[in-house]
């Protein structure tokens, strides 16, 4: 089939060695402009202009989301000094939306990648590989609103209704209020996020692992390397580039995370599960404080910038750009 050909191409291209950068084929700015015109127009209107607008609005009262009254740095000062729900460093461990997002960044990203890698390796050794991958990928097809319903029946604090507490009840633990206890709520939400994203990581990493030639693996084993050494010495280095691209994609998405928190806990109990994007939304729309919401958005962009810069550097070193 014609389809198989590009598949082979793509596999071949993954084998660790950086691909040759495309050479100068044709220097043609006018043609390029034609190809890029719709992109430039849409990105300009929908992303670049609103970002500039938001930056300006973060120095304004922002009634109705419009420029109504300039307030200097008030929104930022307010955010960092008067809003313990955004960041509270006065006690240990710190709390607030910013801190929660850091928890998400660390745990969600690393667990998704770890599980994705483990599953990809394990699945490649069985005949029902595609079924397993299909199963872990299934959550990607589920709307966030449906996720809330699904997990309600898992996390319900009443052991007669919540699956998890019913299971714990068998061994006489709990019941635990997964979404109602501030000590558990972030972990519970992160677990849902992980459940939703592992499929994506598995699929990508599985494909990367398959591109490693079996001769290399064989040779290592013949030389007496055990499975763990093979994994550490060969597989891990070979998939480090896909892992880092995946990590950046996940990190950017987790900082923008909104729906899961909004739908499952609305930031509660109290404000224990708020994250940055939730705060931005909460301040702007229900709160009507568009200036403060914009300040949150700008803080969010500032946090993401180093991650993006790392991404860019990574491209450079792998000479893809």
């Amino acid at each position, binding site marked *: 089939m014609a389809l198989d050909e590009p598949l082979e191409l793509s596999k071949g291209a993954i084998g660790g060695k950086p691909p040759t950068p495309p050479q100068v084929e044709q220097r043609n700015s006018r043609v390029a402009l034609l190809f890029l015109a719709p992109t430039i127009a849409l990105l300009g209107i929908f992303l670049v202009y609103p970002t500039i607008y938001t930056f300006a609005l973060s120095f304004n*009262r922002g*009634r*109705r*989301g419009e420029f109504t009254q300039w307030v200097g740095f008030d929104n930022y000062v*307010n955010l960092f000094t*008067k*809003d*313990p*729900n955004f960041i509270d460093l006065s006690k240990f461990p710190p709390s607030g939306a910013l801190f929660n997002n850091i928890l998400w960044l660390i745990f969600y990203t690393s667990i998704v990648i770890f599980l994705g890698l483990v599953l990809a390796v394990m699945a490649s050794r069985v005949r029902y590989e595609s079924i397993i991958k299909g199963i872990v990928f299934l959550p990607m097809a589920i709307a966030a609103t449906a996720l809330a319903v699904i997990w309600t029946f898992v*996390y*319900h*604090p*009443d052991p007669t209704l919540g699956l998890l507490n019913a299971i714990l009840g068998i061994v006489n633990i709990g*019941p*635990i*209020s*997964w*979404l*109602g*206890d*501030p000590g558990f709520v972030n972990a519970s939400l992160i677990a849902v996020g992980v459940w939703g994203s592992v499929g994506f990581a598995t699929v990508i990493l599985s494909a990367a692992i398959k591109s490693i030639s079996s001769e290399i693996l064989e040779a290592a084993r013949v030389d007496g390397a055990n499975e763990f050494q093979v994994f550490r010495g060969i597989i891990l280095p070979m998939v480090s580039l896909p892992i880092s691209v995946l990590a950046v994609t996940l990190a950017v998405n987790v900082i923008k995370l909104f729906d899961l928190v909004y739908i499952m*806990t609305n*930031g*509660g*109990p*109290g*404000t224990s599960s708020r994250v940055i994007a939730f705060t931005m*939304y909460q*301040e702007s*729309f*229900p*709160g*009507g*404080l568009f200036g*403060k919401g914009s300040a949150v958005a700008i803080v969010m962009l500032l946090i993401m910038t180093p991650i993006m810069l790392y991404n860019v550097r990574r491209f450079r070193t792998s000479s893809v750009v």
Partner: protein
Amino acid sequence: MAKFPRFLTLPVAVVMLISACGGGATPAVPAASGPAASTGTGASQPAGSAAAGGEITVTSLWGGAEQENFQKVLDAFKAKTGITAKYESNRDNYATVLQTKITAGNPPDVAILPGIGFLRRFAKDGSIKKVSDLGIDVAALQPNYAPGILEIGSVDGQLYAIMVKFNSKSTFWYRPAKLSAAGVTPPADWDAFTAALGTLASKGDKPLGLGAKDDWTLTDWFESIYVRQAGPEAYDKLFSKNGDWTDPSVAAAVKSMTDVLNDTNVDGGIKAALGRGFVDGIAQAFSANPKADMYYEGGFVGGIITGQVNKAAKLGTDADWFDFPSINGNKGVTIGGDVLAAFTTKPGVKEFMEYMTTAEAGTVWAGTGAIISPVKSVDVSVYPNDQTKREAAQVANATAVRFDGSDLLPGGGPNLGAELQKAIQGQTVDWASFQAQIKTAWDNE
């Protein structure tokens, strides 16, 4: 400051409501599209006369059964005026939908606003039309309401919205059979209440259901306690711009609240309650398989019991309510309600707003049993069951009626419900920080 008087006038409203419920005063209904009314004082163009066959959009966050009940009112409006009021439900993200529709130039013609904080925001934003801008004679509306009711929809002394429905929030729901089996009579005051909790708890079951994941159930608890314990005047001050949340009365009310809302009394414990929604909390006491004996929330709980939680349940025998226990002899009643506001002056809007002030509309709506009508001349007999009749009478007979305080707080402020969620877990609430935030929010309004 201009908002303050409405709290003072509210108790008077109650006195008037009594007479309203008792007598059958004829309502002073401004005739729809009356020529006198359309000589409006408004700055923008007054609404034209009746747009028979016209269409306006009405939006609120009601769906399901509530929507069906409200649709009956809209149908009656259509039958009377020929104007179609098309209903749009926006259950989620209500503020977002409203704001984005306004920004894009598609505001709903009329919207039901949940909460006065909302109303103030959109009024101060200039997004809502004054009632007088529609060509409605505000003074002519006054006789339809007890004094103080219309003021609830006022911002800075101008009438922007009209209260169209409310519910008592001082109804404490219980299982009559369970209480009498335990030898407990519905407690009248706080001491009797805590004693009753002790008796019920000693019989094995945890007495209270609680769905604290919906944090407004906690603000209702707090408000009901505060208005009784600190008194109506302190309540008025607290929920106004001059409120001081560091006042000891706040911590005292929270203390009383956590004295009863704790692991000893709440079925399943506090942490479980924080993961449980409002309706699931009702189900703890009133499902076919109940564990708890009592559940505190507003008058609308009755409809949820029979409509959602246990369709076999009968009000009066399986579920009934007593007055939220008095504290220090104070019996003030808190109410929650929704106001109707116009976002355009399109033909038909004026007619609709006027219609909603009539006993006719109030009667249709009250007849569904879902709401209590603020319109004076809606006869108490239209309420379909004893529980709603008593609810209307409770509000009418109260010595003090106060509007749901958390609905009065500015939208951009800190979340009182979230702080109370912390409090019932035994965490100390930083009221000084709360005060600083809410001050900023009031100043920013």
